[in-house]
């Protein structure tokens, strides 16, 4: 089997938001919508104050509550672990938005662009009218993953078939790959380090692992 996951090393993330920008460029998300964002968390009491950066997105859960509640089957989990939305089936009821504990989903009801009513070049290329008034979220760049089957490349190893955010990260904080393949980057990395998944107690089985220390 294949289970695509992401591993994000919180020790390395510098909060530069390059991944956020790369995602916006790759997916032409409208203003105000970020499929990938980076939380900037300040915590503690002076003088012991911490600042942590936490990249978040759709976690492509093992047991996606968004899929369970979706009345139309627009939201589905694929055999490789990716959770997808069929824009032609979705009715935009937002039940999945309520079900997702990671605030990963958005619905926008009109076409909006970064600079007014007309799309800039990169937005025009990727604009998808089918995404208006339906649910949308990070896809793990599913089009690239699917390209791998055609070209024989390996997601997580070959940049052409790896999510844009992972490719863009300036500090190498992100890895992507098949958790069921013990030789993949992510499998090796997760075996060598200590990691957690967000809101593990909810039983959703998120496909994003956060590395916080070495093993």
């Amino acid at each position, binding site marked *: 089997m294949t289970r695509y996951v992401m591993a994000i*090393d*919180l*020790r390395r*993330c510098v909060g530069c938001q390059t991944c956020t920008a790369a995602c916006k460029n790759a997916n032409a998300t409208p203003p105000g919508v970020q499929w990938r*964002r980076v*939380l*900037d*968390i*300040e*915590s*503690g*009491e*002076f003088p012991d*104050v*911490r600042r*942590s950066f*936490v990249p*978040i997105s759709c976690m492509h859960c093992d047991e996606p*509550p968004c*899929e*369970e*509640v*979706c*009345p*139309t*089957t*627009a939201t589905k989990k694929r055999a490789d672990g990716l959770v997808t939305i069929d824009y032609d*089936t*979705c*009715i*935009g*009821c*937002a*039940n999945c*938005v*309520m*079900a*997702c*504990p*990671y*605030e990963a989903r958005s*619905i926008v*009801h009109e076409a909006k662009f970064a600079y007014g009513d007309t799309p800039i070049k990169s937005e025009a290329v990727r604009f998808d009218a089918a995404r*208006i*008034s*339906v649910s949308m979220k990070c896809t793990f760049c599913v089009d690239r993953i699917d390209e791998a089957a055609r070209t024989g490349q390996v997601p997580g190893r070959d940049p052409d078939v790896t999510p844009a955010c992972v490719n863009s990260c300036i500090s190498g904080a992100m890895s992507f790959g098949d958790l069921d393949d013990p030789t993949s980057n992510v499998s090796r990395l997760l075996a060598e380090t*200590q990691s*957690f998944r*967000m*809101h*593990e107690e*909810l039983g*959703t089985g998120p496909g994003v692992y*956060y*590395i*916080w*220390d*070495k093993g």
Partner: protein
Amino acid sequence: MKAKTLKAGERIGPRQQHHWDWRAASNFIAGGAGGGLLAFAALASLAGIDVRALLLGGMALIGAGLTCVWFEIGKPWRALNVYRHLATSWMTREAAVAPLVFGCGALALLTGHSLFVLLTGVFGAAFVYAQARILSADKGIPAWRHPRCRPMLVATGFAEGAALVAVASPFVMTSAAGQLGVAAVTLGLLLVRVLAWRSYLAGLRADGAPEGSLRALAAVDGPFLKFGNLLAAALLLLAALGAPLAGLALIPAGLLAVGGGWLVKYTLVRRAAFTQGFALPHLPVRGRGPAGAAVKPGWGGAN
């Protein structure tokens, strides 16, 4: 220098949801009351009462709620897609019960046959239950997924249904005994509802919930108890004294009880619906230092 607690930045703690507005709330408000009304109209029919007007009222409420939802969804002309996921989606199941309600209800009105009246009541009850399950399946909203939210919603749906029968009873039933029965049943259901509500609030506080949810629910606790339940119960007791007070007291008692339920449901769907927010069980180790303590901003209660 005085130690200063730093707050987590924006958009980390729970946020109020804005996708489901008053239209979605209306479905739970009107649909729950309508389903409850159908269930108690069916029960009242067993006592030989003509409940056709009540059935019509229940269907109208459910229909109004569903119409509001239709206006809320992003692609209303695809609404039939809602029937695709009977396997796990309670929204599909709610939608699947609706035609059964309307079909049986129409047959009950046309034929007056008791079987159809009873079936309409059963499907009305199923509608109330399905709505409660819709909210409890939404894991992203802690105040909804709490296990005590579901019984509270079912309890208020049925209490509202009985209360609507109470409102109508001076018009549809002439016997004092019948009105006394309605007052007693409504009173019992109000008690169950209050217990379910208090248990829900206590559960949320004990298990932890977003502070915004706790605040919003606490704000309606007083008015709900005083007007929606206590005052309504006092008027029901007055009604129990019999004619001519019965008819006069049953109407405001029922309206107050329904209003209380609607206030709670509106608050639950709109004001208390805060998201999970983000939390870290470990802050990352930087350099040689140790890991930082866990963070979970914006949560109150025991957790």
